[in-house]
């Protein structure tokens, strides 16, 4: 926790609700990315972030003070996203944007800017890799935080990311060569 975050946390603990609002805004992207890595759509991920706010507000006492706050927020968001998917009976999870796969690589690439191609490549990764990539590079979490959110070992996170990056390199290389 950096100094500003510690100060907000201290104020939240002292009952200052606006401090929670700021902490929440500070980590909204991490929660969104964490939810999106599991949720079926960005709209659903946004709803999960809303739900996370409600869930977290007033539950300060639940935080054990272990690890980072952002990892806790992201963990709650991820769990809520999983619960939603489960309630819908929608597991295994579909890849968001996977429809581009059906269009064929040429059609999918035509008219897409590089960023969009990358996003689709990320969305097309296997669920575990996609989630780990989203937490690390989109949510900006450290490897230790990703490990905490996923409930897995640091080494596993590194290995998963390595596999994902290799896949993305191949995918992006194919796109630029094609």
């Amino acid at each position: 926790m950096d100094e500003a975050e510690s100060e907000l946390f201290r104020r939240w603990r002292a009952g200052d609700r606006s401090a929670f609002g700021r902490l929440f805004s500070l980590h909204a992207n991490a929660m969104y990315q964490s939810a999106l890595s599991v949720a079926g759509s960005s709209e659903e991920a946004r709803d999960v972030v809303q739900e996370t706010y409600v869930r977290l507000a007033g539950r300060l006492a639940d935080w054990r003070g272990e690890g980072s706050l952002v990892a806790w927020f992201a963990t709650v968001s991820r769990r809520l996203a999983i619960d939603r998917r489960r309630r819908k009976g929608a597991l295994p999870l579909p890849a968001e944007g996977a429809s581009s796969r059906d269009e064929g690589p040429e059609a999918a690439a035509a008219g897409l800017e590089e960023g969009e191609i990358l996003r689709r490549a990320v969305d097309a990764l296997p669920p575990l890799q996609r989630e780990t990539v989203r937490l690390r590079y989109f949510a900006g979490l450290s490897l230790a935080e990703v490990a905490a959110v996923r409930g897995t070992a640091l080494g596993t996170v590194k290995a998963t990311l390595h596999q994902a990056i290799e896949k993305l390199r191949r995918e992006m290389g194919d796109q630029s060569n094609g």
Partner: protein
Amino acid sequence: MDEACREIREDLIEKPDGTLSAEKERRIEGHIERCAECRAFAADLTGLAGAMSALARREEKDLAPLAARRPSLARRLVLAAGILVLAAAAFTAGRTTAPRPPVPEPDPTEEPPVVTQVVEIRIPAGSDTPALLAGLQAARTALARGDEALAGECLDQVARVAAGSAPEKEARGAALLAGASAEAAAGRTAGARSRVQEFRSADPASPALGPTLAWLAEVEAGAGEWDQSARHLADALAAGVAPLPEGTVRLAFGGALEKAGRVEKAREAYLDASRAPGAGRWGTEARLALARLDLGRRGDLAEAERTLRELEAAGVALPPELERLLLVLQDPGEREALQAYVLAQREGAAEYYLDLLVREHPESEATRRLFAKLHPIEEERPVRARVERLGELASRLPPALAAYSWLVAGDLLAVDLEDRAAAKIAYEKAARLSTGRLGRLALALSRGEREPGSTSAREACILASLE
């Protein structure tokens, strides 16, 4: 790629965290100099990380409205306070002869400093009603950005303006009410209560008293002070709440009583709300609240179903979870499971009913929820830790419940961690502990004949929203 390259690449992924040892950093540098393929990997990694971070920033912009959308308790309080400040502003209405300029709404996409400027420019000391409205709007805008402290300051300003622009008696009333708003916005419920009490003593016949007490009750409800909230709602109803619709206040009264644990009184209040003259939409809301109360705290599934069927017959569109509840109740097995669940809630004999549910309805969502309630496995824990906790619980519980623990652990392993091999072991343990329906289910899961975590009962998943 050999083992050394793989290790270097994984360390390259960790490098930005600054957690690598100096020795590892040196090893990476040396290796990169020698190995062209890892050099290319490092360059690609940097490019990909940058591009993904840029994509995230773009997505983050889409998140900006979330702060405005979030259902913040404090936001509700200040919006409620806003209504009160408007009531306060009404004291000064008609006192000014100056033409009232239109009050433009601040652009909610502006940066926070602009909000501060709006407050400074639009609320000079001693200005009139439009300034009060501008102050209120500025408070709302500040709040939409999550700056509740600034919103509180805005309302303080409004209080000062109100006090300075009306004749003495009205000014005192307005100042007390606006002061109460500011106290509430700052989260000081006792302060708000004390100012409202002062207002009440100063002018017990004021037509604003009823709505003001109703507002105070909402503030108290926001702070979880349900007894106080119920008392002030009763006072508000006695004083007359016009222009607020009576049905909504009665409905809130029922809610406060329910939260305060006065279940039968709450039921009466909901019934009154549903019968209030011109109840309309609030009447329907009251009937829905009644059904939820019967289902939850009273454990009367039949009564809840009767109310819901009546609403359905009257053409009321039920909330999805209640609509699903009616569907689920058509399944005799699920009906039985739900009945056991609600009885467990009402009779305080949850262990007995859980045992029954585990034996008879191992797949039901009701079973899962009751188990989670009696043996909480905190959702925020990492999944591995939850699985370990379930294993530890299994060693202490009677066989049927232990089997159930392993079944839940198996689902977590299969669905959340995608570790089918470990899930199979957990399901097998469950199968060995139970020879009944639960055992057969676990066996089917261990053999891959059933998909983990996707039973039809779970799809129903209605109970979460009913509690």
